[in-house]
């Protein structure tokens, strides 16, 4: 069994980090949570490890988001303004802006559409997404089609309108 998990780890870890990153928007935190998920998998030895990992990761990210919301006030107090103004290289600022825009666009999606899209992007199959989200398998294609369309529209709108869509 540990060998299986090692295999899953090799194949899934980057996708899990990516999935988590688009939920917590902090690369290190995403890595921490991904490792934590695997650590829990070692203890629980679930049947369907990959699916289980993503369920656990989604839950952890949700808890994280709640906690972050609680601490938001403190963070805004602690976060110093100059950070963004710092003379970061052009392309870094670019990457930052784009990330912010993608994040804002993702936030325009309904939670279910967003979840389906992120799971698909993390390499999950329709069956796995259906199991995870509770959607009928036959509805996944439609859900993804809608999610993709809204994402692209919101992203483009953000690019044109700038701050209109990217609401902080």
């Amino acid at each position, binding site marked *: 069994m540990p060998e299986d998990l090692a295999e899953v780890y090799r194949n899934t870890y980057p996708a899990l980090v990516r999935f988590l990153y688009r939920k917590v928007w902090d690369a290190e935190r995403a890595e921490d949570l991904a490792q934590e998920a695997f650590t829990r998998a070692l203890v629980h030895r679930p049947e369907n490890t990959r699916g289980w990992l993503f369920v656990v990761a989604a839950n952890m990210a949700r808890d994280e988001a709640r906690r972050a919301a609680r601490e938001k006030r403190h963070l805004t107090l602690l976060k110093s303004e100059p950070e963004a103004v710092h003379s970061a290289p052009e392309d870094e600022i670019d990457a930052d802006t784009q990330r912010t825009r993608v994040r804002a666009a993702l936030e325009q999606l309904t939670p279910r559409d967003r979840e389906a899209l992120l799971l698909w992007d993390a390499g999950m199959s*329709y069956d796995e997404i259906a199991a995870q989200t509770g959607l009928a398998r036959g509805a996944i*294609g439609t859900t993804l089609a809608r999610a993709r369309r809204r994402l692209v529209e919101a992203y483009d709108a953000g690019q044109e309108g700038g701050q209109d869509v990217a609401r902080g």
Partner: protein
Amino acid sequence: MSHVDEGTLHAYLDGELPSGDRAALEAHVAQCATCRAALTDERALRDRASAVLGRARPRERPAPPFEQIRRTPARHRWHVRMPFAWAASIALALGIGYLLRSPNQSVVASDQQGPTAEPTVVATNRTTGAPRQEQKAAAPVQARGTRRTTPAPADEIDRVRESRAPASDVVASAEARNSASSPTPAARRVSDSVGLVQLNDSLLRERLKTAHLETVVVTGAAVPAAAKSERGATTGWGGISRDVARSLLGQQPVGLPGLPIRAIRRGLGNGAVVVEQALDSSSVIQIIQRPAGSELRDSLSSGFGARAYRERADHLLARFIGRLRVEITGPISVDSLNRLLEQVQPLP
């Protein structure tokens, strides 16, 4: 066959259409221009969405070896949080001490920085070996678990003080007053060699079950002590107003004119008041004052903590000002404390 809906097109593009449906779709698209166009559009949309998502990727970093994950189930987190666990232990001690404080027996929390002027104030231990041994040699009585009751010769004080100077850790010692007249072996062992590292949660809790936490003395060694003085000065413990202090003492509290007052607190024993004043941003001295002849000694005539306090008081520099017995302590040399004590007078 009617036109293909977008969901089916996406499932097809995602390779998730069952093979039968797949063949049917391909056959239809081959002869339906509308669906062909739609398929092209949806493919573009799908690629576009992937590209957009791809702009929000974390930096790709290699996964840590699986073995590392296996070896660190949850323990890692505790390891990181150990310092907080210690902080929590101390906070617990302070908190319980505060809660157990009765109106007539208030808690003194004194916070000192730097090498203390009175080396035998509290049972402290350094984790470094050599200074500890020197201290032990200088005070063989302490090694037996009883506390030294006579002042150390001046050169010995100096030696001990010097030996403490390089240490930069903070040592906290919780003095518990047992209901029994002598400390339990465990308590003695702890009081004798208590260091922050050794005073763990469970031990502390065990002691608190049977003991009344009376004084908590946090002693810092010679380090840049801005943070520590901050803690000493800003804790709200027993903070009282000037008026309350006046009514407790029966006269104006005394202090050093010209130095900013960081806090006025209720001290140990009836009517005792502690005035804390800042020498500079990192040193706070405490001026402990009580009406002369007040029942401090009586109220603390027995018990482990009482003895500790008494010894402590013995080594404080003291003088009488008007009807007040005034003691001074702080993170500076005995000479300096003496000089400061001479300047103490009723605060304007």
